[in-house]
């Protein structure tokens, strides 16, 4: 009889060979064509799940294939080790987050080895180690010097259960993505990285990236959301200051029948002082969350303020309303409403019995009834005085010119993209390297005092970061003047670690630089594989961070990932395989079978 197939023996022998022959360890060889093959690295939750197995296998297949084409292939693996689950586990199991995390890493590394993936384990990167995060602290101080980071009081999404600030994308239908608690709007001082400084570059480069799927590029473009419009001002009856609004449809100016301001707008506050109803409404708005996706679907509410603006062209009085769908943080915190030609404005006008005027007619001459249905397409101007008959572009320019010439407005470019808020009020993360001194305000930690090491032997209680209660961590001398000062106890958004790890694999052991010449050899990543859920944030942050490193002189590379493969989810019985749903299949079981 022929030799039988014994999987356990076959697997063990193959793996033993690869280990002994160091088959997947690669150094920088200028005589060979390099190929950097990378999977989005995992959070060490404890056990591999099927989504992991699928994505790691896809990447492994690609790595092995390119090796057979004669290329010098780097496929590294590491751990995105900071994050909230470690704290939650700490509370549940009475074990410090660090200890829980390191144990998970050991277990998962074993699982990965059992699957026989082709990794160069010498380059393993673990983001919760100081030898890793010291470099992002260092870069942060450099960014501080250049004005690329700043501190600002801002309205944020406060998750009352997880006791932390959430990014807009972490708020789903007004609730926290992990806690499911109703999110509150609060003002808190936070550190921001100036992603908007790179908005145009991040947008324009998308046109030169053939290795990315169109769908992802579209998502990035929409997220950056560059729009060209006009900023123009309306005088306000009884006020000295004009009301400034931004619009991408100046051609519809004659159709303005009301204005709407955000709850936090000074004019709303003024009206609130005289009216308890308005004050109550304003307070309600402030409490509900600031996520844009919610704005689109929620009920549009508003109240008249009893104040009027003067239409800059017709001289008509235009009533002001306060509305829950206007964001103080977008544009000027006030909008001109054209119910005839904007869907949201139309719905609001119908609900609150505000006048709806038609000022655009279809270019093909067909009839429309603006009272029955809003007309949002561009067309030909009507009921617009001297601008009648013009098309969109002509009208845009004529009206923009008018406002620029009379000094009442200007053409501007607006972005949907906001600067990246990186502060988190959590313990298990990279300490933000700032010291607060009563005299010197916020002072970056000097290079020679980095890293600011996160203490690992702590007890997490669930009611705020333990760092706040550790004088040995908090108390420090001001690097500037020497007086008693306090360390920042907030930590970085964990997306900071995942914004540069791909470059660090090239030189994981360097203790003299964030990136050295080995990064110049290996980067950019030739094939990047991961879940499509990261199509916006992680990829955008990485593209931004890469450019920051470039402008700090660490690298010549601008685009971190040349080819991108986004994988689909693993389903069971039609639903996403999810620990929360309890419908997972454990890879470990399959391995043993």
């Amino acid at each position, binding site marked *: 009889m022929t030799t039988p*197939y014994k*999987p356990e023996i*076959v697997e063990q*022998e193959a793996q033993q060979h690869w280990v002994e*022959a160091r088959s997947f360890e690669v150094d920088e060889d200028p005589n060979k064509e390099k190929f950097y093959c990378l999977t989005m690295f995992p959070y060490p939750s404890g056990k591999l799940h099927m989504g992991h197995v699928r994505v790691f296998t896809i990447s*492994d297949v690609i790595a092995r294939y390119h090796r*057979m*084409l004669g290329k010098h292939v780097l496929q590294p693996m590491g751990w995105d080790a900071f994050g909230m689950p470690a704290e939650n586990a700490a509370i549940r199991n009475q074990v410090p987050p660090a200890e829980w995390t390191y144990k998970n890493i050991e277990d998962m590394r074993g699982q990965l080895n059992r699957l026989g993936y082709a990794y160069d384990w010498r380059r393993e990167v673990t983001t919760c180690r100081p030898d890793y995060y010291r470099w992002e602290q260092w870069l942060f101080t450099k960014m501080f010097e250049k004005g690329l980071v700043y501190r600002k009081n801002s309205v944020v999404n406060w998750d009352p259960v997880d006791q932390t600030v959430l990014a807009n994308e972490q708020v789903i239908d007004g609730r926290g993505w992990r806690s499911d608690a109703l999110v509150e709007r609060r003002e808190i001082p936070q550190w921001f990285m100036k992603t908007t400084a790179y908005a145009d570059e991040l947008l324009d480069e998308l046109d030169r990236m053939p290795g990315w799927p169109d769908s992802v590029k579209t998502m990035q473009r929409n997220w950056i959301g560059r729009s060209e419009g006009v900023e123009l001002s309306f005088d306000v009856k009884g006020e000295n200051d004009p009301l400034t609004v931004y619009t991408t449809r100046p051609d519809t100016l004659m159709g303005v029948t009301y204005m709407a301001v955000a709850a936090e707008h000074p004019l709303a506050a003024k009206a609130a002082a005289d009216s308890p109803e308005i004050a109550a409404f304003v307070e309600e708005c402030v409490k509900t969350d600031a996520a844009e996706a919610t704005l689109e679907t929620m009920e549009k509410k508003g109240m008249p303020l009893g104040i009027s603006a003067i239409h800059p062209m017709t001289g008509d009085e235009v009533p002001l309303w306060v509305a829950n769908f206007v964001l103080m943080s977008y544009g000027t915190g006030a909008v001109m409403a054209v119910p005839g030609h904007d869907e949201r404005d139309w719905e609001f006008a119908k609900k609150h019995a505000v006048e709806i005027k038609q000022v655009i007619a279809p270019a093909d001459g067909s009839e429309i009834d603006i009272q029955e249905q809003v007309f949002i397409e561009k067309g030909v101007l009507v009921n617009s005085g001297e601008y009648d008959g013009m098309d969109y572009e002509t009208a845009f320019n004529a009206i923009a010119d008018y406002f620029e010439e009379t000094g009442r407005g200007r053409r501007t470019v607006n972005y949907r993209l906001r600067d990246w808020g990186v502060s988190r009020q959590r313990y298990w993360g990279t300490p933000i390297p700032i010291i607060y001194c009563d005299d010197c305000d916020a002072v970056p930690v000097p290079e020679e005092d980095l890293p600011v090491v996160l203490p690992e032997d702590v007890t997490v209680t669930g009611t705020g970061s333990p760092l706040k209660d550790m004088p040995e961590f908090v108390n420090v001398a001001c690097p500037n003047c020497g007086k008693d000062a306090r360390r920042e106890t907030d930590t970085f958004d964990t997306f900071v670690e995942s914004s540069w790890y791909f470059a660090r694999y090239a030189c994981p052991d360097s203790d003299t630089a964030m990136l050295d010449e080995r990064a110049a050899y290996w980067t950019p990543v030739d094939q990047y594989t991961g879940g499509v859920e990261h199509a916006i944030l992680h990829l955008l942050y990485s593209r931004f961070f890469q450019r920051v490193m470039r402008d700090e002189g660490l690298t010549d590379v601008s685009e971190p990932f040349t080819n991108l493969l986004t994988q689909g989810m693993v389903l069971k019985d039609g639903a996403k395989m999810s620990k929360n749903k309890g419908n997972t299949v454990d890879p470990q079981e399959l391995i043993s079978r």
Partner: protein
Amino acid sequence: MMFAAPPEQSLEWSDEGVQGSYRFLKRFWHAAVDHAEAGPVTALDPASLDDAQKALRRKTHQTIAKIGDDLGRRNSFNTAVAAAMELLNAINKFDDASDAGRAVEHEALEAVVIMLSPMTPHICHALWQQLGHETALIDQQWPEFDESALELDMIELVVQVNGKLRGRVAVPADADKAAIEALAIADENVQRFIDGKDIRKVIVVPGRLVNIVV
């Protein structure tokens, strides 16, 4: 997992799918091991192969081209695995213990082992040794694609119009009726006699002639 769906789409987990994969691996194992245990293999001489051997060789190289494209350009792992399975089926159907037959089979089996190794590296590592190699599969290059293996024999057919000889066409040996008809009608010499006329019937005698009735 690579077989069940293309990477960008969601993958419906199926326990039966896992069983199916395991059965395939066992068939794969035995195909290679049975072949290896049947004795040494002589060198392949592409010039002296019979039709069936040429057909298997053609399949091997078509598969090399297809899988290379699936892995290199399309990131389509499920179709790559499917193509390898098809080649393995062809190998299993191939029943030829002659020296030339075994040589062609050996080339086919080695190709499958190499091409499946990115997806199933462990079993391929072992089978590479079984097939007589001392160097490890991990250091092996992707199989070379031999374009000449794809060449199809051409045969010449006589073309008649209403029974009278009007032209000749060369068609691939495995062309189907529709392809033969099209080639016959398109022939320049034949066109002179059918131009402007209604074609009422086309009779194809495979391997011999085409008669166009107008």
